[in-house]
């Protein structure tokens, strides 16, 4: 049976982690390659790098990071943030990323999804969706709206409609981030997660709100997500990935426990 995936997310700026990561045992690491190696060796099923670099020169630094990561870990990893063209996708995939994630760029020009899927295969193309809870309206009948630029700009676009649309365009996976839940540590937005996961045939990664392993269990059971994205709960030593997975296993969730 397919395992539910546990995916740590690392924010990178100018080739370094935005915040130093402190694992259990107080080892502080600022280098994304070493951090990726740590998570690889400790049972992460996949790793997401989110590049928040603004300048074009620093993009090259990120590609060097991607190359080093690809030589170091032998599980899939994806790169997102600032991927805005086919050339950006090709560069990240050639450097060794398994998948690329597009978010704002896909909302602005949806054809980047179909072009990417055509050129590199659907399995490489992850569409990141930032979603805000809103009043139901004719424009947003699901009560969830797509926002871009890290939640700063509302697009007047229904999240459920957009999820079906990106599937149609050839996305291989959706990374679904709830702006309302993000940073709260109160749990994932389960209603949203389930709504999207049950209405598309491609895998959905739940993102935003994880505060403990029980939240992750909820994301993949009630929420029907295929995977749960985590950041702070493993980055600062509160839990190891092993502990998270042991908890999920005891709760009856199939997770990968041999690595």
């Amino acid at each position: 049976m397919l395992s539910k995936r546990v995916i740590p997310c690392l924010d990178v700026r100018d080739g370094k982690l935005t915040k130093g990561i402190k694992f259990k045992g107080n080892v502080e690491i600022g280098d994304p390659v070493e951090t990726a190696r740590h998570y690889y060796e400790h049972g992460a099923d996949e790793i997401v790098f989110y590049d928040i670099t603004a300048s074009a020169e620093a993009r090259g630094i990120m590609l060097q990071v991607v190359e080093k990561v690809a030589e170091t870990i032998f599980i899939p990893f994806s790169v997102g943030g600032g991927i805005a063209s086919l050339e950006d996708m090709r560069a990240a995939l050639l450097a060794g990323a398994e998948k690329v994630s597009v978010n704002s760029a896909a909302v602005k020009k949806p054809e980047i999804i179909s072009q990417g899927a055509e050129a590199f295969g659907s399995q490489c193309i992850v569409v990141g969706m930032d979603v805000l809870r809103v009043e139901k309206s004719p424009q947003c009948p699901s009560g969830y709206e797509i926002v871009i630029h890290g939640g700063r700009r509302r697009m007047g676009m229904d999240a459920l409609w957009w999820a079906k649309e990106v599937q149609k365009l050839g996305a291989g996976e959706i990374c679904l981030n709830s702006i309302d839940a993000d940073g709260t540590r109160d749990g994932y937005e389960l209603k949203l997660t389930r709504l999207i996961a049950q209405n598309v045939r491609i895998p959905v990664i739940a993102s935003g709100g994880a505060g403990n392993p029980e939240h992750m269990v909820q994301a993949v059971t009630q929420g029907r997500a295929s995977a749960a994205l985590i950041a702070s709960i493993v980055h600062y030593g509160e839990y190891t990935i092993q502990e998270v997975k042991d908890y999920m296993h005891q709760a009856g969730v199939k997770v990968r426990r041999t690595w």
Partner: protein
Amino acid sequence: MIAVLNYRAGNLTSVKRALDHENIPSAITDDAESLAQARGIIFPGVGAAGSAMHNLRNSGLDKILKELLARGKPMLGICLGCQIILDKSMENHASTLSILPGSCERFQDELQDEHGDPINIPHMGWNNVNLVKQCELFQDVPREAEFYFVHSYFPVPHKDLVIGDTHYGREFCSVFGRPGLWAMQFHPEKSGRPGLKILNNFYKYCMNA
């Protein structure tokens, strides 16, 4: 040296990186001479059956490959490289290499997951392989190890060739072949330590073949 077959499709570099990491000498090549000199061949692949067959036929690699295998050259097919050695694929209705008997089918839309919901297609993520036959590639690989899959089509080889199967909405064959000619649907190069072990076992076999 292990030759990673270059047929201008799919992710060749990830296999190469995994071999480099394990200090297994290798080269990405489509040169008949190099393929003949290699101790073994890895047939990697991500992509569609139709365009891959097109590239193989245009370059004459289909014939070269068949000749080498007939002479006993060890080979490991991965993902598309596992599907394409069978007779035909439902993907693009392609007739494929016919190195081993069988075909390739698509996961049916009506298959269900553990919640009774329709399964996601592609099958993407980590899953187990249940060995129905002993296989030296799995030597010292823990039985409960999982492997990384990403595919919408699965191989249906002749039943005598089945080595391992996997459950995803149904049972499907995930490893098949015979000694010296193996095919696996998952990606050993993306499956962590158990996957790297399989690549090492293949190399060991090639060096002793």
